[in-house]
């Protein structure tokens, strides 16, 4: 017969008493720990922000000496500049169209990839490669592909259509918008795809099984199960992408340089040109504030909608 002896363990006792200074240090040590981060934010974020606010109300133009107070003149210069207004419109239009196409394509790919099949992993890795490429390189690559007369695009189209195609993809309206959208869609559809796929895989498979037993068709199941479940993810993906798309700069810089003329100026490109090539710094700063307000408006709308989507 096996016997076990259990002995009582000695008590651990109360924690040691601290001196008054030790207690004070114990309570306030946390401030010392957060101080570097706070200082860094103050120096690199808060100070430049406040300084830019000051700059937008004074003369800070490299071509005009002095820093006199000019009231709202910097703002009115931007508002009454037709190029500024065009760039804002183009930003909104390009973002909306690109993101809409990316969403539809991303959703279609995600729906295809949600089921497992042989080779899925490899295909998935290939699909998300564009995300790892710098937008500048993406712009370069598309420039090479579309360039006239050496790019292959026109040549392939000529072969396919059986008649000479000589489109100036980076110089002729409306083709240049098409080029910018295609570069953006190529790079960012994988982002939509990844987020929507994550959303799709999070839907409990039981729901589809219950629907199958209920005799619900695939189309009905898509609207009754997939779309409502994916709602928050769709909002998230659209918000992220739109916020990113309205900053569109790199591909424009590389592919069209804003041209021909000012036809492909987006808001970011416009502000860059005014500020860093013409050195009207106070006008560019005022424009940035206006753009910030416009962006904040869009963001607020989107984020409010995002937060309102009900949890399941």
């Amino acid at each position, binding site marked *: 017969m096996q016997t076990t002896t259990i002995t009582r363990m000695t008590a651990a006792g109360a924690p040691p008493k601290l001196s008054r200074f030790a207690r004070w240090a114990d309570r306030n040590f946390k401030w010392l720990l957060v101080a570097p981060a706070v200082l860094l934010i103050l120096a690199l974020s808060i100070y430049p922000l406040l300084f830019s606010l000051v700059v937008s109300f004074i003369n800070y133009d490299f071509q005009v000496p002095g820093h006199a107070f000019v009231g709202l003149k910097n703002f009115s210069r931007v508002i009454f500049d037709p190029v500024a207004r065009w760039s804002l419109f183009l930003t909104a239009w390009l973002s909306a169209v690109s993101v809409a196409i990316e969403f539809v394509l991303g959703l279609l790919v995600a729906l295809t990839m949600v089921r497992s099949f042989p080779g899925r992993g490899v295909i998935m890795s290939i699909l998300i490669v564009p995300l790892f490429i710098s937008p500048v390189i993406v712009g370069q690559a598309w420039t090479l592909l579309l360039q006239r007369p050496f790019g292959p695009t026109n040549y392939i189209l000529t072969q396919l259509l059986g008649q000479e195609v000589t489109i100036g993809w980076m110089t002729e309206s409306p083709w240049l918008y098409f080029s910018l959208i295609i570069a953006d869609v190529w790079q960012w559809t994988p982002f939509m795809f990844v987020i929507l796929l994550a959303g799709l895989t999070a839907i409990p498979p*039981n729901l589809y*099984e219950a629907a*199958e037993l*209920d005799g619900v068709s695939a189309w009905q199941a898509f609207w009754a199960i997939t779309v409502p479940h994916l709602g928050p993810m769709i909002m998230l993906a659209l918000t992220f992408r739109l916020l990113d798309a309205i900053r569109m700069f790199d591909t424009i810089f590389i592919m069209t340089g804003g041209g021909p003329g000012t036809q492909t100026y987006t808001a970011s490109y416009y502000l860059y040109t005014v500020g860093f090539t013409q050195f009207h710094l106070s006008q560019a700063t005022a424009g940035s504030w206006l753009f910030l307000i416009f962006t904040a408006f869009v963001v607020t709308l989107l984020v409010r909608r995002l937060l309102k989507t009900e949890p399941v």
Partner: protein
Amino acid sequence: MAEVKITGLHKRYGTFHAVRGIDLDIRDGEFTVLVGPSGCGKSTLLRTIAGLEEISEGTIEIGGEVVNDFRPRDRDVAMVFQDYALYPHMTVAKNIGFGLKARKMPKAEVETRVGEAARMLGITPLLGRFPRQLSGGQRQRVAIGRAIVRNPRIFLFDEPLSNLDAQLRDEMRGEIKRLHQDIATTMIYVTHDQIEAMTLADRIVLMRDGVIEQQGTPLDLFERPASTFVAGFLGSPRMNFLAGTLALSGSVAAIRLSDLLLPVAPGRNLDGATDGQAVLLGLRPEHMTRARGEKPAEGMFRQEATIDLLQPTGSRSYATFRLSGAPVMAELQAHDVSRPGESLPIDINMSRASIFDALSERAL
């Protein structure tokens, strides 16, 4: 309503052999419970009947028709899932009626049927609510409502009560049993809980490692377990197993534990057993009682015991003591023992004892 006939069913996932040759006949209107430890293949078997898993080998017949190649929707079965699987963006009424709507039933009839199902389950006041506004028990009622509203040939339940707390589980168990009495449709119910299996089933199918270990009525399995596995799985507290040897002399048999000789009840069939065979003696806690009277009754074996550990539940007291060196738990009356260390005579009902071969663990 329909009977189910499963013949030579196998299910493999790659190299993993989940279900290894099941033959099962389920009669029309019968309540069959598939029970077993996790990973025994019971849920897989249920899902193959629903058509949610393809089978690797064998046939499944529902109502005399081979349904191997039928899609789940065409098998006319309804299933209740462990996590309810309600459509979260639909009200209770829409959840229950969705299957009917999908099958193009006229709106008025859908409403009538939904109302009727809700009344049966006592969820009429909840019809306008969303699943997230319901408690676990209410959600499970809705899930059951979604199943009964279609009036399917077979109901399948996949551990429907596992996500509920103990009290609610008892309550819902009673309701499912009543539901079966009322509508008398064939029901197949998967659980790992032996109490659910015992209380609900007309027939228990106890599975282990992808095969059926034993099937029969609950009392069949409980009183005449075919193996130590079945004996240990059913009943709580568990059956006590004591290693010993069989002592046969003429028509008298006994089991020799290290320092005890327990007579086997006369008339017990021990065909094929040999003298000196290593056996396991199975004693259920409820078959040991505090001895009363001068002499033990027919078939009882009396033994003085010193209680090591006492676990009172209020109505009963579980007392652990040593029988020939091995710990044994007995289920005594609440006031039979007052504290550990106490000694008392225990009567062991040898006519109810089970005897298993120690090697094969099968019943003798």
